[in-house]
Protein backbone atom coordinates (compact mmCIF):
# COMPACT_ATOMS: atom_id res chain seq x y z
CA UNK A 1 0.00 0.00 0.00
CA UNK A 2 2.93 2.32 -0.36
CA UNK A 3 2.18 5.43 -2.36
CA UNK A 4 4.32 5.53 -5.44
CA UNK A 5 6.03 8.79 -6.23
CA UNK A 6 4.00 11.02 -8.47
CA UNK A 7 5.61 11.42 -11.82
CA UNK A 8 5.15 14.54 -13.86
CA UNK A 9 2.63 14.97 -16.68
CA UNK A 10 -0.48 12.90 -17.23
CA UNK A 11 0.49 10.20 -14.75
CA UNK A 12 1.11 12.71 -11.98
CA UNK A 13 -2.21 14.38 -12.70
CA UNK A 14 -4.09 11.04 -12.66
CA UNK A 15 -2.44 9.96 -9.42
CA UNK A 16 -3.37 13.24 -7.76
CA UNK A 17 -6.95 13.05 -9.07
CA UNK A 18 -7.41 9.43 -7.93
CA UNK A 19 -6.01 10.20 -4.46
CA UNK A 20 -8.20 13.30 -4.16
CA UNK A 21 -11.28 11.32 -5.24
CA UNK A 22 -10.53 8.63 -2.60
CA UNK A 23 -10.19 11.37 0.03
CA UNK A 24 -13.52 12.81 -1.14
CA UNK A 25 -15.00 9.34 -0.62
CA UNK A 26 -13.40 9.34 2.84
CA UNK A 27 -15.02 12.71 3.49
CA UNK A 28 -18.40 11.25 2.52
CA UNK A 29 -17.78 8.33 4.91
CA UNK A 30 -17.07 10.85 7.69
CA UNK A 31 -20.33 12.68 6.85
CA UNK A 32 -22.30 9.43 7.05
CA UNK A 33 -20.63 8.71 10.40
CA UNK A 34 -21.54 12.20 11.65
CA UNK A 35 -25.14 11.70 10.52
CA UNK A 36 -25.37 8.38 12.38
CA UNK A 37 -23.93 9.96 15.52
CA UNK A 38 -26.49 12.78 15.25
CA UNK A 39 -29.22 10.22 14.78
CA UNK A 40 -28.17 8.31 17.91
CA UNK A 41 -27.89 11.50 19.95
CA UNK A 42 -31.18 12.78 18.52
CA UNK A 43 -32.85 9.48 19.32
CA UNK A 44 -31.56 9.57 22.89
CA UNK A 45 -32.10 13.27 23.65
CA UNK A 46 -35.07 14.40 21.58
CA UNK A 47 -36.54 10.94 21.16
CA UNK A 48 -36.49 11.38 17.40
CA UNK A 49 -33.72 9.97 15.21
CA UNK A 50 -32.69 11.64 12.01
CA UNK A 51 -35.30 10.82 9.34
CA UNK A 52 -34.05 8.60 6.55
CA UNK A 53 -30.73 7.83 8.23
CA UNK A 54 -30.90 4.25 6.93
CA UNK A 55 -31.14 5.17 3.28
CA UNK A 56 -28.57 7.97 3.49
CA UNK A 57 -26.17 5.48 5.08
CA UNK A 58 -26.78 2.94 2.31
CA UNK A 59 -26.29 5.38 -0.56
CA UNK A 60 -23.49 7.34 1.10
CA UNK A 61 -21.43 4.23 1.86
CA UNK A 62 -22.02 2.78 -1.64
CA UNK A 63 -20.86 6.00 -3.34
CA UNK A 64 -17.90 6.33 -0.95
CA UNK A 65 -16.73 2.75 -1.56
CA UNK A 66 -16.91 3.18 -5.35
CA UNK A 67 -14.71 6.25 -4.90
CA UNK A 68 -12.18 4.04 -3.04
CA UNK A 69 -11.82 1.52 -5.87
CA UNK A 70 -9.51 3.54 -8.19
CA UNK A 71 -7.15 4.26 -5.26
CA UNK A 72 -7.22 0.58 -4.38
CA UNK A 73 -6.23 -0.36 -7.93
CA UNK A 74 -3.54 2.34 -8.18
CA UNK A 75 -1.82 1.35 -4.93
CA UNK A 76 -2.10 -2.39 -5.61
CA UNK A 77 -4.11 -2.96 -2.44
CA UNK A 78 -6.06 -5.87 -3.93
CA UNK A 79 -4.94 -9.01 -2.15
CA UNK A 80 -3.29 -11.86 -3.99
CA UNK A 81 -2.28 -15.33 -2.92
CA UNK A 82 1.40 -15.43 -1.96
CA UNK A 83 2.26 -19.09 -2.04
CA UNK A 84 3.18 -20.75 -5.30
CA UNK A 85 4.56 -17.92 -7.37
CA UNK A 86 6.76 -16.37 -4.71
CA UNK A 87 9.45 -18.65 -6.10
CA UNK A 88 8.38 -18.19 -9.72
CA UNK A 89 10.55 -16.06 -11.96
CA UNK A 90 10.04 -12.33 -12.31
CA UNK A 91 8.84 -12.91 -15.88
CA UNK A 92 5.84 -15.01 -14.81
CA UNK A 93 5.05 -12.54 -12.06
CA UNK A 94 5.17 -9.66 -14.51
CA UNK A 95 2.90 -11.52 -16.93
CA UNK A 96 0.34 -12.26 -14.21
CA UNK A 97 0.45 -8.61 -13.14
CA UNK A 98 -0.27 -7.68 -16.73
CA UNK A 99 -3.21 -10.12 -16.86
CA UNK A 100 -4.60 -8.71 -13.61
CA UNK A 101 -4.40 -5.13 -14.88
CA UNK A 102 -6.05 -6.14 -18.14
CA UNK A 103 -8.89 -7.80 -16.24
CA UNK A 104 -9.31 -4.70 -14.09
CA UNK A 105 -9.37 -2.47 -17.16
CA UNK A 106 -11.85 -4.68 -19.02
CA UNK A 107 -14.09 -4.98 -15.99
CA UNK A 108 -14.13 -1.25 -15.24
CA UNK A 109 -15.00 -0.41 -18.85
CA UNK A 110 -17.71 -3.09 -18.91
CA UNK A 111 -19.16 -1.85 -15.63
CA UNK A 112 -19.00 1.76 -16.82
CA UNK A 113 -20.93 0.84 -19.95
CA UNK A 114 -23.56 -1.20 -18.08
CA UNK A 115 -24.02 1.23 -15.19
CA UNK A 116 -24.51 4.06 -17.66
CA UNK A 117 -27.59 2.14 -18.85
CA UNK A 118 -28.37 1.47 -15.22
CA UNK A 119 -28.40 5.23 -14.66
CA UNK A 120 -30.72 5.76 -17.65
CA UNK A 121 -33.07 3.09 -16.21
CA UNK A 122 -33.08 4.72 -12.79
CA UNK A 123 -33.86 8.08 -14.36
CA UNK A 124 -36.51 6.77 -16.79
CA UNK A 125 -38.40 4.93 -14.05
CA UNK A 126 -37.83 7.72 -11.52
CA UNK A 127 -36.51 5.39 -8.78
CA UNK A 128 -36.02 7.22 -5.48
CA UNK A 129 -35.42 6.27 -1.85
CA UNK A 130 -38.58 5.68 0.21
CA UNK A 131 -38.43 8.39 2.85
CA UNK A 132 -36.37 11.24 1.47
CA UNK A 133 -37.30 10.67 -2.19
CA UNK A 134 -33.64 10.97 -3.15
CA UNK A 135 -33.24 9.95 -6.83
CA UNK A 136 -30.88 6.98 -7.24
CA UNK A 137 -29.56 8.21 -10.59
CA UNK A 138 -27.61 10.99 -8.85
CA UNK A 139 -25.71 8.34 -6.90
CA UNK A 140 -25.15 6.44 -10.16
CA UNK A 141 -23.64 9.59 -11.70
CA UNK A 142 -21.06 9.81 -8.90
CA UNK A 143 -20.35 6.08 -9.31
CA UNK A 144 -19.69 6.56 -13.03
CA UNK A 145 -16.99 9.14 -12.22
CA UNK A 146 -15.39 6.53 -9.94
CA UNK A 147 -15.51 3.96 -12.72
CA UNK A 148 -13.84 6.33 -15.19
CA UNK A 149 -11.07 6.82 -12.63
CA UNK A 150 -10.92 3.05 -12.02
CA UNK A 151 -10.37 2.54 -15.74
CA UNK A 152 -7.66 5.22 -15.64
CA UNK A 153 -6.01 3.57 -12.63
CA UNK A 154 -6.09 0.19 -14.41
CA UNK A 155 -4.53 1.89 -17.42
CA UNK A 156 -1.74 3.20 -15.18
CA UNK A 157 -0.99 -0.19 -13.64
CA UNK A 158 -1.24 -1.79 -17.09
CA UNK A 159 1.34 0.67 -18.43
CA UNK A 160 3.77 -0.19 -15.62
CA UNK A 161 3.13 -3.93 -15.90
CA UNK A 162 3.84 -3.77 -19.63
CA UNK A 163 7.15 -2.05 -18.87
CA UNK A 164 7.94 -4.82 -16.35
CA UNK A 165 7.21 -7.50 -18.91
CA UNK A 166 9.43 -5.72 -21.46
CA UNK A 167 12.24 -5.45 -18.89
CA UNK A 168 12.15 -9.06 -17.71
CA UNK A 169 11.33 -10.46 -21.13
CA UNK A 170 14.71 -9.50 -22.53
CA UNK A 171 16.70 -11.08 -19.71
Amino acid at each position, binding site marked *: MTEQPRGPGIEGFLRAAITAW*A*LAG*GGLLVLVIALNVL*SVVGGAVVGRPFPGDFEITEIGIAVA*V*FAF*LPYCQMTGANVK*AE*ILTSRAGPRLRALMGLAASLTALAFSVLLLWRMWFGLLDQKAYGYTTTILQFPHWIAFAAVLVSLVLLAAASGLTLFHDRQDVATFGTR
Partner: protein
Amino acid sequence: MTDPFVIGFGGLAALVTLIALRMPIAYAMILVGGIGVSLLDGPGVLLSQLKTLAYGQFSIYDLSVVPMFVLMGALASASGLSASLFRGANAWFGRFRGGTAMAAIAACAGFGAVCGSSLATASTMGKVALPELRSSGYSGALSTGTLAAGGVLGILIPPSVVLVLYSVIVEANIATMFMAAFIPGFLAVALFLVTIAIHVRIDPEAGPAGVAVSGRRLVTDTVAMAPVAIIFGVVIGGIYLGLYNPTPAAAVGAALVWLHGALTGGLRWRQVREALLETAAISGMIYLILLGAEMLKVFMSRGGVPQAMAESMLGSDLPPVLVLALLLGALILLGCLMDSLSMILLAIPFFWPVLVALNGGDAVIASEAGFGMTNDDLKIWFGILALIVVELGLITPPVGMNVYVISAIARDVPMRETFLGVIPFFVAEIFRVALLIAFPALVLWFPHWMAG
Protein backbone atom coordinates in the same frame (compact mmCIF):
# COMPACT_ATOMS: atom_id res chain seq x y z
CA MET B 1 -19.78 -28.43 -21.99
CA THR B 2 -23.55 -27.99 -21.82
CA ASP B 3 -23.90 -29.59 -18.40
CA PRO B 4 -24.16 -26.71 -15.88
CA PHE B 5 -22.57 -28.94 -13.27
CA VAL B 6 -19.46 -29.60 -15.37
CA ILE B 7 -19.15 -25.92 -16.14
CA GLY B 8 -19.55 -25.17 -12.44
CA PHE B 9 -16.71 -27.44 -11.35
CA GLY B 10 -14.60 -26.31 -14.30
CA GLY B 11 -15.11 -22.77 -13.01
CA LEU B 12 -13.97 -23.77 -9.55
CA ALA B 13 -10.79 -25.32 -10.96
CA ALA B 14 -10.14 -22.20 -13.07
CA LEU B 15 -10.65 -20.04 -9.98
CA VAL B 16 -8.11 -21.96 -7.89
CA THR B 17 -5.58 -21.84 -10.75
CA LEU B 18 -5.99 -18.09 -11.21
CA ILE B 19 -5.64 -17.44 -7.48
CA ALA B 20 -2.57 -19.66 -7.25
CA LEU B 21 -1.05 -17.70 -10.16
CA ARG B 22 -1.41 -14.51 -8.10
CA MET B 23 -4.37 -13.01 -9.90
CA PRO B 24 -5.94 -10.63 -7.32
CA ILE B 25 -8.62 -12.74 -5.62
CA ALA B 26 -11.42 -10.27 -6.34
CA TYR B 27 -10.68 -10.19 -10.06
CA ALA B 28 -10.29 -13.98 -10.24
CA MET B 29 -13.81 -14.29 -8.78
CA ILE B 30 -15.23 -11.60 -11.08
CA LEU B 31 -13.65 -13.21 -14.14
CA VAL B 32 -14.80 -16.76 -13.37
CA GLY B 33 -18.24 -15.66 -12.17
CA GLY B 34 -18.85 -13.39 -15.15
CA ILE B 35 -17.67 -15.85 -17.78
CA GLY B 36 -19.50 -18.73 -16.06
CA VAL B 37 -22.85 -16.93 -16.00
CA SER B 38 -22.38 -15.94 -19.65
CA LEU B 39 -21.74 -19.59 -20.57
CA LEU B 40 -24.75 -20.89 -18.66
CA ASP B 41 -27.32 -18.17 -19.30
CA GLY B 42 -25.89 -16.22 -22.20
CA PRO B 43 -24.10 -12.85 -22.01
CA GLY B 44 -27.41 -10.97 -22.01
CA VAL B 45 -28.16 -12.06 -18.44
CA LEU B 46 -24.74 -10.96 -17.21
CA LEU B 47 -25.01 -7.60 -18.97
CA SER B 48 -28.38 -6.79 -17.46
CA GLN B 49 -27.20 -7.96 -14.00
CA LEU B 50 -24.25 -5.61 -14.11
CA LYS B 51 -26.52 -2.57 -14.41
CA THR B 52 -27.40 -2.72 -10.72
CA LEU B 53 -25.47 -5.63 -9.14
CA ALA B 54 -22.48 -3.65 -7.87
CA TYR B 55 -24.57 -0.74 -6.60
CA GLY B 56 -26.95 -3.19 -4.93
CA GLN B 57 -24.09 -5.01 -3.18
CA PHE B 58 -22.30 -1.89 -2.05
CA SER B 59 -25.45 -0.36 -0.58
CA ILE B 60 -26.35 -3.30 1.72
CA TYR B 61 -27.08 -1.65 5.06
CA ASP B 62 -25.46 -4.31 7.25
CA LEU B 63 -22.17 -3.89 5.38
CA SER B 64 -21.97 -0.18 6.16
CA VAL B 65 -20.31 -1.02 9.49
CA VAL B 66 -17.28 -2.36 7.62
CA PRO B 67 -15.72 0.94 6.44
CA MET B 68 -16.68 2.52 9.77
CA PHE B 69 -14.89 -0.15 11.81
CA VAL B 70 -11.94 0.01 9.42
CA LEU B 71 -11.70 3.79 9.92
CA MET B 72 -12.07 3.34 13.68
CA GLY B 73 -9.17 0.89 13.69
CA ALA B 74 -7.01 3.11 11.47
CA LEU B 75 -7.62 6.12 13.71
CA ALA B 76 -6.97 4.02 16.83
CA SER B 77 -3.63 2.88 15.37
CA ALA B 78 -2.60 6.45 14.65
CA SER B 79 -3.58 7.81 18.06
CA GLY B 80 -1.83 7.01 21.32
CA LEU B 81 -4.34 4.40 22.53
CA SER B 82 -2.01 1.45 22.03
CA ALA B 83 0.80 2.93 24.13
CA SER B 84 -1.40 3.72 27.11
CA LEU B 85 -2.97 0.25 26.94
CA PHE B 86 0.41 -1.45 27.05
CA ARG B 87 1.71 0.82 29.84
CA GLY B 88 -1.39 0.17 31.91
CA ALA B 89 -1.25 -3.60 31.45
CA ASN B 90 2.48 -3.66 32.12
CA ALA B 91 2.03 -1.77 35.38
CA TRP B 92 -0.02 -4.72 36.59
CA PHE B 93 1.75 -7.68 34.99
CA GLY B 94 5.33 -6.46 34.48
CA ARG B 95 6.58 -7.48 37.92
CA PHE B 96 5.95 -11.19 37.24
CA ARG B 97 8.10 -13.56 35.26
CA GLY B 98 6.85 -13.40 31.65
CA GLY B 99 4.65 -10.52 32.76
CA THR B 100 5.61 -8.05 30.06
CA ALA B 101 4.59 -10.59 27.39
CA MET B 102 1.34 -11.12 29.27
CA ALA B 103 0.84 -7.37 29.31
CA ALA B 104 1.32 -7.34 25.54
CA ILE B 105 -1.41 -9.98 25.18
CA ALA B 106 -3.75 -8.02 27.44
CA ALA B 107 -3.01 -4.82 25.51
CA CYS B 108 -3.67 -6.61 22.20
CA ALA B 109 -7.01 -7.76 23.58
CA GLY B 110 -7.82 -4.20 24.66
CA PHE B 111 -6.81 -2.87 21.28
CA GLY B 112 -8.86 -5.61 19.62
CA ALA B 113 -11.84 -4.13 21.43
CA VAL B 114 -11.61 -0.98 19.33
CA CYS B 115 -10.08 -2.46 16.19
CA GLY B 116 -11.48 -5.16 13.94
CA SER B 117 -8.31 -6.18 12.14
CA SER B 118 -5.49 -8.56 13.07
CA LEU B 119 -2.78 -6.92 11.00
CA ALA B 120 -3.50 -3.48 12.42
CA THR B 121 -3.45 -4.88 15.95
CA ALA B 122 -0.19 -6.78 15.38
CA SER B 123 1.62 -3.85 13.77
CA THR B 124 0.34 -1.21 16.19
CA MET B 125 1.03 -3.20 19.35
CA GLY B 126 4.26 -4.52 17.85
CA LYS B 127 5.66 -1.01 17.50
CA VAL B 128 4.71 -0.20 21.09
CA ALA B 129 5.54 -3.42 22.91
CA LEU B 130 8.50 -4.96 21.03
CA PRO B 131 11.13 -2.42 22.11
CA GLU B 132 9.99 -2.78 25.72
CA LEU B 133 10.06 -6.60 25.58
CA ARG B 134 13.51 -6.66 24.05
CA SER B 135 14.98 -4.12 26.46
CA SER B 136 13.51 -6.11 29.38
CA GLY B 137 15.57 -9.09 28.23
CA TYR B 138 12.79 -11.21 26.70
CA SER B 139 13.92 -13.79 24.17
CA GLY B 140 13.35 -13.07 20.48
CA ALA B 141 11.06 -16.05 20.03
CA LEU B 142 8.84 -15.21 23.00
CA SER B 143 8.55 -11.49 22.20
CA THR B 144 7.78 -11.82 18.51
CA GLY B 145 5.65 -14.96 18.92
CA THR B 146 3.55 -13.25 21.59
CA LEU B 147 2.88 -10.22 19.40
CA ALA B 148 2.15 -12.16 16.22
CA ALA B 149 -0.32 -14.31 18.17
CA GLY B 150 -1.71 -11.35 20.11
CA GLY B 151 -2.58 -9.66 16.83
CA VAL B 152 -5.11 -12.41 16.19
CA LEU B 153 -7.09 -11.03 19.14
CA GLY B 154 -7.87 -7.98 16.99
CA ILE B 155 -10.30 -10.14 15.02
CA LEU B 156 -11.40 -12.51 17.76
CA ILE B 157 -12.56 -9.78 20.14
CA PRO B 158 -15.52 -7.81 18.76
CA PRO B 159 -15.77 -5.64 16.72
CA SER B 160 -14.57 -7.96 13.99
CA VAL B 161 -14.80 -7.22 10.28
CA VAL B 162 -14.58 -10.92 9.37
CA LEU B 163 -17.53 -11.68 11.66
CA VAL B 164 -19.59 -8.93 9.99
CA LEU B 165 -18.94 -10.46 6.57
CA TYR B 166 -19.83 -13.93 7.87
CA SER B 167 -23.10 -12.57 9.27
CA VAL B 168 -24.00 -10.98 5.94
CA ILE B 169 -23.29 -14.19 3.97
CA VAL B 170 -25.28 -16.59 6.16
CA GLU B 171 -27.88 -13.93 7.10
CA ALA B 172 -27.11 -14.02 10.80
CA ASN B 173 -27.66 -11.16 13.22
CA ILE B 174 -24.42 -9.20 13.67
CA ALA B 175 -25.24 -8.29 17.27
CA THR B 176 -25.82 -11.98 18.13
CA MET B 177 -22.53 -12.95 16.50
CA PHE B 178 -20.67 -10.28 18.47
CA MET B 179 -22.22 -11.68 21.67
CA ALA B 180 -21.21 -15.20 20.70
CA ALA B 181 -17.59 -14.08 20.20
CA PHE B 182 -17.37 -12.67 23.71
CA ILE B 183 -16.63 -15.74 25.88
CA PRO B 184 -14.43 -17.42 23.22
CA GLY B 185 -12.47 -14.15 23.04
CA PHE B 186 -11.85 -14.18 26.77
CA LEU B 187 -10.93 -17.84 26.56
CA ALA B 188 -8.32 -16.95 23.93
CA VAL B 189 -6.76 -14.31 26.19
CA ALA B 190 -6.74 -16.72 29.14
CA LEU B 191 -5.15 -19.52 27.13
CA PHE B 192 -2.51 -17.18 25.70
CA LEU B 193 -1.62 -16.03 29.22
CA VAL B 194 -1.34 -19.65 30.37
CA THR B 195 0.82 -20.39 27.33
CA ILE B 196 3.26 -17.63 28.33
CA ALA B 197 3.25 -18.84 31.94
CA ILE B 198 4.17 -22.35 30.81
CA HIS B 199 6.81 -20.99 28.41
CA VAL B 200 8.64 -19.05 31.14
CA ARG B 201 8.29 -21.94 33.58
CA ILE B 202 10.13 -24.22 31.15
CA ASP B 203 12.60 -21.54 30.08
CA PRO B 204 12.89 -18.86 32.83
CA GLU B 205 15.54 -16.99 30.85
CA ALA B 206 13.00 -16.20 28.10
CA GLY B 207 10.97 -13.73 30.14
CA PRO B 208 12.64 -12.24 33.25
CA ALA B 209 10.48 -10.53 35.87
CA GLY B 210 10.49 -6.74 35.90
CA VAL B 211 10.50 -4.36 38.87
CA ALA B 212 7.17 -3.52 40.48
CA VAL B 213 5.93 0.02 39.79
CA SER B 214 4.94 2.39 42.57
CA GLY B 215 1.32 2.40 43.74
CA ARG B 216 0.91 5.88 42.36
CA ARG B 217 2.08 4.89 38.86
CA LEU B 218 -0.18 1.88 39.00
CA VAL B 219 -3.18 4.17 39.55
CA THR B 220 -2.29 6.73 36.86
CA ASP B 221 -1.42 4.06 34.29
CA THR B 222 -4.65 2.21 35.00
CA VAL B 223 -6.71 5.38 34.69
CA ALA B 224 -5.03 6.07 31.34
CA MET B 225 -6.68 2.92 29.99
CA ALA B 226 -10.15 4.29 30.73
CA PRO B 227 -10.83 5.75 27.24
CA VAL B 228 -10.56 2.30 25.65
CA ALA B 229 -12.88 0.80 28.26
CA ILE B 230 -15.38 3.61 27.70
CA ILE B 231 -15.27 3.31 23.90
CA PHE B 232 -15.64 -0.47 24.06
CA GLY B 233 -18.49 -0.14 26.55
CA VAL B 234 -20.33 2.42 24.45
CA VAL B 235 -19.88 0.56 21.15
CA ILE B 236 -20.09 -3.13 22.01
CA GLY B 237 -22.08 -2.66 25.22
CA GLY B 238 -24.61 -0.60 23.27
CA ILE B 239 -24.90 -3.31 20.63
CA TYR B 240 -25.23 -6.06 23.29
CA LEU B 241 -27.98 -4.19 25.13
CA GLY B 242 -29.79 -3.51 21.87
CA LEU B 243 -29.53 0.27 22.32
CA TYR B 244 -28.69 0.66 18.65
CA ASN B 245 -27.76 -1.19 15.46
CA PRO B 246 -24.12 -2.04 14.74
CA THR B 247 -23.90 0.76 12.15
CA PRO B 248 -24.70 3.70 14.48
CA ALA B 249 -22.58 1.98 17.12
CA ALA B 250 -19.61 1.83 14.75
CA ALA B 251 -20.20 5.48 13.84
CA VAL B 252 -20.19 6.51 17.51
CA GLY B 253 -17.06 4.42 18.07
CA ALA B 254 -15.18 5.99 15.17
CA ALA B 255 -16.22 9.46 16.35
CA LEU B 256 -15.09 8.74 19.93
CA VAL B 257 -11.69 7.39 18.82
CA TRP B 258 -11.24 10.45 16.63
CA LEU B 259 -12.25 12.78 19.47
CA HIS B 260 -9.86 11.06 21.88
CA GLY B 261 -7.03 11.22 19.35
CA ALA B 262 -7.67 14.90 18.63
CA LEU B 263 -7.82 15.81 22.34
CA THR B 264 -4.64 13.94 23.25
CA GLY B 265 -2.86 15.41 20.25
CA GLY B 266 -2.09 12.09 18.59
CA LEU B 267 -4.28 12.82 15.58
CA ARG B 268 -3.39 15.74 13.39
CA TRP B 269 -4.55 16.38 9.85
CA ARG B 270 -1.70 14.36 8.39
CA GLN B 271 -2.59 11.26 10.44
CA VAL B 272 -6.28 11.66 9.61
CA ARG B 273 -5.46 11.85 5.91
CA GLU B 274 -3.33 8.69 6.21
CA ALA B 275 -6.13 6.94 8.14
CA LEU B 276 -8.67 7.90 5.46
CA LEU B 277 -6.46 6.62 2.65
CA GLU B 278 -5.78 3.40 4.54
CA THR B 279 -9.55 3.01 5.03
CA ALA B 280 -10.02 3.62 1.29
CA ALA B 281 -7.50 0.93 0.34
CA ILE B 282 -8.80 -1.68 2.79
CA SER B 283 -12.54 -1.02 2.31
CA GLY B 284 -12.17 -0.88 -1.47
CA MET B 285 -10.39 -4.22 -1.39
CA ILE B 286 -13.06 -5.81 0.84
CA TYR B 287 -15.98 -4.53 -1.25
CA LEU B 288 -14.40 -5.63 -4.52
CA ILE B 289 -13.98 -9.15 -3.09
CA LEU B 290 -17.60 -8.99 -1.97
CA LEU B 291 -18.70 -8.12 -5.49
CA GLY B 292 -16.59 -10.94 -6.91
CA ALA B 293 -17.98 -13.38 -4.32
CA GLU B 294 -21.52 -12.40 -5.28
CA MET B 295 -20.85 -12.91 -8.99
CA LEU B 296 -19.25 -16.26 -8.21
CA LYS B 297 -22.17 -17.24 -5.98
CA VAL B 298 -24.69 -16.50 -8.75
CA PHE B 299 -22.68 -18.67 -11.14
CA MET B 300 -22.06 -21.53 -8.69
CA SER B 301 -25.63 -21.85 -7.47
CA ARG B 302 -26.80 -21.77 -11.11
CA GLY B 303 -24.36 -24.63 -11.79
CA GLY B 304 -25.58 -26.47 -8.69
CA VAL B 305 -22.12 -26.86 -7.14
CA PRO B 306 -22.95 -26.09 -3.46
CA GLN B 307 -25.99 -28.40 -3.58
CA ALA B 308 -23.90 -31.18 -5.12
CA MET B 309 -21.23 -30.80 -2.43
CA ALA B 310 -23.90 -30.94 0.26
CA GLU B 311 -25.40 -34.10 -1.23
CA SER B 312 -22.08 -35.89 -1.61
CA MET B 313 -21.20 -35.09 2.03
CA LEU B 314 -24.61 -36.38 3.08
CA GLY B 315 -24.14 -39.55 1.05
CA SER B 316 -20.73 -40.22 2.61
CA ASP B 317 -22.38 -41.28 5.93
CA LEU B 318 -19.60 -39.63 7.93
CA PRO B 319 -20.57 -38.46 11.43
CA PRO B 320 -21.49 -34.73 11.40
CA VAL B 321 -18.74 -33.74 13.82
CA LEU B 322 -16.12 -35.38 11.62
CA VAL B 323 -17.39 -33.48 8.58
CA LEU B 324 -17.27 -30.29 10.64
CA ALA B 325 -13.67 -31.05 11.56
CA LEU B 326 -12.88 -31.73 7.89
CA LEU B 327 -14.39 -28.40 6.83
CA LEU B 328 -12.43 -26.55 9.52
CA GLY B 329 -9.30 -28.39 8.41
CA ALA B 330 -9.99 -27.30 4.83
CA LEU B 331 -10.19 -23.68 6.05
CA ILE B 332 -6.82 -24.04 7.79
CA LEU B 333 -5.33 -25.36 4.53
CA LEU B 334 -6.95 -22.56 2.50
CA GLY B 335 -5.31 -20.20 4.97
CA CYS B 336 -2.00 -21.21 3.39
CA LEU B 337 -3.20 -19.66 0.16
CA MET B 338 -5.27 -16.58 1.00
CA ASP B 339 -6.24 -14.11 3.70
CA SER B 340 -9.11 -14.57 6.12
CA LEU B 341 -11.57 -12.16 4.46
CA SER B 342 -11.31 -13.79 1.03
CA MET B 343 -11.53 -17.19 2.61
CA ILE B 344 -14.76 -16.44 4.49
CA LEU B 345 -16.33 -14.90 1.38
CA LEU B 346 -15.20 -17.72 -0.88
CA ALA B 347 -15.71 -20.82 1.25
CA ILE B 348 -18.68 -20.16 3.51
CA PRO B 349 -21.27 -20.14 0.67
CA PHE B 350 -20.10 -23.70 -0.11
CA PHE B 351 -19.68 -24.93 3.46
CA TRP B 352 -22.86 -23.61 5.00
CA PRO B 353 -25.30 -25.68 2.84
CA VAL B 354 -23.29 -28.81 3.72
CA LEU B 355 -23.74 -28.15 7.44
CA VAL B 356 -27.45 -27.41 7.09
CA ALA B 357 -27.93 -30.65 5.15
CA LEU B 358 -26.00 -32.64 7.79
CA ASN B 359 -28.03 -31.04 10.55
CA GLY B 360 -31.18 -32.43 8.98
CA GLY B 361 -32.37 -29.82 6.48
CA ASP B 362 -34.11 -26.49 6.80
CA ALA B 363 -36.86 -27.15 9.33
CA VAL B 364 -35.07 -29.43 11.76
CA ILE B 365 -35.74 -29.27 15.51
CA ALA B 366 -32.86 -29.39 17.98
CA SER B 367 -33.59 -32.84 19.44
CA GLU B 368 -33.42 -34.53 16.03
CA ALA B 369 -30.65 -32.44 14.49
CA GLY B 370 -27.32 -33.92 13.45
CA PHE B 371 -25.44 -31.45 15.67
CA GLY B 372 -28.08 -31.43 18.38
CA MET B 373 -28.97 -27.78 17.89
CA THR B 374 -31.20 -25.63 15.69
CA ASN B 375 -29.89 -24.20 12.43
CA ASP B 376 -29.80 -20.74 14.01
CA ASP B 377 -27.53 -21.98 16.78
CA LEU B 378 -25.43 -23.94 14.29
CA LYS B 379 -24.95 -20.74 12.31
CA ILE B 380 -23.61 -18.95 15.40
CA TRP B 381 -21.44 -21.84 16.58
CA PHE B 382 -19.89 -22.55 13.18
CA GLY B 383 -19.29 -18.82 12.63
CA ILE B 384 -17.13 -18.59 15.74
CA LEU B 385 -15.25 -21.81 14.92
CA ALA B 386 -14.64 -20.61 11.34
CA LEU B 387 -13.51 -17.21 12.64
CA ILE B 388 -10.85 -18.87 14.79
CA VAL B 389 -9.48 -21.23 12.15
CA VAL B 390 -9.32 -18.65 9.35
CA GLU B 391 -7.20 -16.54 11.69
CA LEU B 392 -4.73 -19.37 12.17
CA GLY B 393 -3.51 -18.75 8.62
CA LEU B 394 -2.19 -15.43 9.89
CA ILE B 395 0.35 -17.08 12.18
CA THR B 396 1.32 -20.19 10.17
CA PRO B 397 3.64 -20.53 7.17
CA PRO B 398 3.66 -19.87 4.28
CA VAL B 399 1.43 -16.76 4.36
CA GLY B 400 1.51 -15.91 8.08
CA MET B 401 0.91 -12.19 7.55
CA ASN B 402 1.09 -11.36 11.27
CA VAL B 403 4.52 -12.97 11.45
CA TYR B 404 5.75 -10.91 8.50
CA VAL B 405 4.38 -7.72 10.05
CA ILE B 406 6.15 -8.42 13.35
CA SER B 407 9.35 -9.53 11.62
CA ALA B 408 9.42 -6.25 9.72
CA ILE B 409 9.46 -4.43 13.08
CA ALA B 410 11.82 -6.82 14.92
CA ARG B 411 14.71 -6.83 12.46
CA ASP B 412 17.12 -8.46 14.91
CA VAL B 413 14.97 -11.60 15.27
CA PRO B 414 15.12 -14.11 12.38
CA MET B 415 11.71 -14.99 10.97
CA ARG B 416 12.30 -18.67 11.72
CA GLU B 417 12.52 -17.84 15.39
CA THR B 418 9.24 -15.92 15.21
CA PHE B 419 7.48 -18.88 13.61
CA LEU B 420 8.93 -21.10 16.37
CA GLY B 421 7.75 -18.64 19.00
CA VAL B 422 4.23 -18.77 17.58
CA ILE B 423 3.92 -22.58 17.78
CA PRO B 424 2.83 -22.73 21.47
CA PHE B 425 0.10 -20.16 20.74
CA PHE B 426 -0.98 -22.17 17.71
CA VAL B 427 -1.33 -25.23 19.94
CA ALA B 428 -3.38 -23.14 22.38
CA GLU B 429 -5.69 -22.11 19.53
CA ILE B 430 -6.21 -25.71 18.39
CA PHE B 431 -6.98 -26.60 21.99
CA ARG B 432 -9.52 -23.78 22.10
CA VAL B 433 -11.23 -24.96 18.90
CA ALA B 434 -11.45 -28.47 20.40
CA LEU B 435 -12.97 -27.01 23.60
CA LEU B 436 -15.57 -25.05 21.65
CA ILE B 437 -16.47 -28.10 19.55
CA ALA B 438 -16.82 -30.24 22.69
CA PHE B 439 -18.78 -27.58 24.59
CA PRO B 440 -20.89 -25.48 22.22
CA ALA B 441 -22.41 -23.78 25.27
CA LEU B 442 -19.20 -21.72 25.57
CA VAL B 443 -20.33 -19.99 22.37
CA LEU B 444 -24.10 -20.18 22.70
CA TRP B 445 -24.74 -19.49 26.37
CA PHE B 446 -24.05 -15.75 26.31
CA PRO B 447 -26.22 -14.84 23.28
CA HIS B 448 -29.03 -17.05 24.66
CA TRP B 449 -28.75 -15.41 28.06
CA MET B 450 -28.76 -11.91 26.55
CA ALA B 451 -31.84 -12.80 24.49
CA GLY B 452 -33.53 -13.75 27.76
